[in-house]
């Protein structure tokens, strides 16, 4: 089974950013994304998702390294200063390279 290397970029952040991140991801070349509702804690305190302003999401984007880098840099520059954002990159393998 032939696999192809891609990057998995994971962004964990306030739910308020969801719509903007989706737009940004599309614009910067991601072919798709997956979002889950999460809760958590970090520098910005504990976010339990009890109400609107307290919700967090985890966004996953599988894409080529260049797209991941561009998107990550954009998130860093645009949101990281004032919003609660955690981000990491992972190396994954996909089977259908044309999809990502």
């Amino acid at each position: 089974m032939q696999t192809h290397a891609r990057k998995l970029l994971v962004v964990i952040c306030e739910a308020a950013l969801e719509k903007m991140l989706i737009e940004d991801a599309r614009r910067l070349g991601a072919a798709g994304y997956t979002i889950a509702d999460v809760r958590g804690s970090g520098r910005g305190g504990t976010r339990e998702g009890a109400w609107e302003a307290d919700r967090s999401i985890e966004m996953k984007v599988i894409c080529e390294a260049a797209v991941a880098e561009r998107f990550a840099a954009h998130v860093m520059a645009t949101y990281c200063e004032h919003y609660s954002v955690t981000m990491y990159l992972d190396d994954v393998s996909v089977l259908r390279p044309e999809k990502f």
Partner: protein
Amino acid sequence: MDPVVLFFLLGVFAKLARSDLRLPEALYETLSIFLLLAIGLKGGIELAKVPLGSVAVQAFAVLAMGFLLPLPAFAILRGLGRLSRPDAASIAAHYGSVSVVTFAVATTFLSKREVAYETHMPLFVALLETPAIVTGILLARMGTLASVRWRAVAHEVLLGKTLVLLLGGLAIGAAVGPDGIEPIKPMFIDLFKGVLALFLLEMGLVAGGRVADLRRAGVFLIGFGVVVPLIFACIGAIVARLVGLSDGGTALLATMAASASYIAAPTAMRIAVPEANPALSIGVALGVTFPFNITLGIPLYLRLAEALRF
């Protein structure tokens, strides 16, 4: 005391005692959708009966009040509180806007006391929601207005769930009238106070969780959270009397002015003024002003309304 307020206190107690009690997020959302629709519907039923001219004048005055209320709040926060411009602007926006649930508690308080009020008051809740947010953003961005993502903010506010459901409910209520509403009355009218009680339990849990933020906020902000509602209530009451509202209507408009938004304003300001610290504005709005209003404030505002007759 009204049972709905006791539910709030139960929530606060549970949170402060670090109980496991947690309402599912979907329930929170459901209850708030229900309340917004029900408030809208109730207001809409009667809206058709009111002469359009008189409502238009009142509406205009309320809108103007909404745009202007953040200004004194901003001045106090900058002048006395020495807060940063974004923080001051954001808090001012929260206090200029309105808390739908505080309004709901006030209406149950009035109906318990059998004080009549203009039944189209929910329209004013809808009108007060937005203007203060616009003013708040302008205050935060003076000089750098170009940098505001106005489209995103406008979308967030005008098409946010609060306005869509309130105005949608108003429109449906106005369209079908009291008879048309009859089949859905057992749900949207009869259950209203029970749902409000449950929602206040959840609000208690949320407000209890904000107490930690208050330490960061400091004494000034806590004082602000009690004093400014009193000032705003007076402004609201005066505006109400000027446009000829009844005792009940005056108490309600005073309550609206005195209340601080914790749904529409936080979401909008988070997008428009990200450098403002949300812990401050939400901490004081939910941790101080909301509890103050639903326990001590509302009875006070009714007395104020009764005292202020001209």
